[in-house]
C-alpha cells in the first residue's frame, strides 16, 4: 500500500507541473481523442470519424463521448474538420 502512496505522491508532483505549464487543459477523454486523431491521421494528415470512434472504443470511450470531445476539440481550435467527417490536428 505504501508503494502506491509513494506513486500517488509522485503523480501529484507531475499534476502540479502540468498545471503550472498549462498542460492540463484537456480532460482525459479529450486527450485520448486528440491522440487518436494524431495517430490515425493518414498521409494527408486526416482521420475519419468512424476510425476515431473505433480507436477510442478500445480506451473505453463511448460514441457520444467521442463526439462530444471532437466537438470540444474543434471548438477550441485543436482540431479542424470538414463536411465529409474527416478531422485533422490543428498543430
Amino acid at each position, binding site marked *: 500500500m*505504501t508503494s502506491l502512496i*509513494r506513486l*500517488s505522491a509522485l*503523480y501529484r508532483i*507531475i499534476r*502540479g*507541473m502540468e498545471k503550472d505549464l498549462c498542460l492540463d487543459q484537456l480532460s482525459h477523454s479529450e486527450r485520448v481523442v486528440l491522440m487518436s486523431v494524431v495517430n490515425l491521421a493518414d498521409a494527408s494528415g486526416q482521420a475519419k470519424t468512424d476510425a476515431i470512434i473505433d480507436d477510442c472504443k478500445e480506451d473505453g470511450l463511448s460514441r457520444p463521448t467521442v463526439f462530444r470531445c471532437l466537438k470540444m476539440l474543434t471548438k477550441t481550435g485543436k482540431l479542424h474538420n470538414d463536411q465529409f467527417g474527416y478531422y485533422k490536428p490543428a498543430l
Partner: protein
Amino acid sequence: MDFSITMADKNVSLIELMILFLAYLVTFAIVWFGVKPLQASIFPGLGILSLAFIPHGVRVLGTWLYREKAILPLILAELFCSAAVTSNLQSMSDLTSHAISAMVGGGCAYAVLVLFETANIRLDFRTHSIRLWRPLVLVGLMSSVLNSIGKSLAFTNQILPEDGLKTLIGFIAGDTIGVMLCLGLLLLISRKIHLTK
C-alpha cells in the same frame, strides 16, 4: 498528520530501493554519455562540472519519498558511478575523496528535509498544495549548496584555489538545473505513458 514521516516508517521494499539505485545509475549515464559530451562541445574546460546533473533530482525525490532509507542506496549508487568513470582511483586519498563525496551527496537532501522540518515546514503531499514540485526544487537548490561545499572540500586537491568559487557555483547550478530536468523527465515519461496508453 506528518505524512512525510509516516511514509518512511512503513516498510520499504528492497525492490523500491533498488529502483532508486538504478534510477541514479540511469540518470548518471544520461549525464555522462549525453550531457557531458554536449557541454564539452559548447563550454570546453568545465572539467568535472556538469551543467545539468540529473541524478541530483533522483536524490531529492528519492529522499523525499524514502527519507533516511534512501541515503544508503544513493551513496552506493554514487560510489558505483565514481568507480565506473574514474580511471585513477589509485591512492587512498582518491578513494577517501570519492567516499566523502558520495556520503555528502547521499545525505545532503535528507539534511535539508530535516532542516525544513525543524523550521516546521512540512512537505506533506496530502496537506500541501498540488504545486509541491516548487518547494522540492528549493530542497534541490539548498541541498546542492551543501553538496557543492562538501564536494569542493572532498576534491580540494583537484580544484585549483582560484577556481574554487567558480566550481562551487558550477556545482550548485548543475545540481539545481538537474533537479528541474529530472522533474521534466518525470513529466515527459508520465505523459508518454498516459498518451500512448
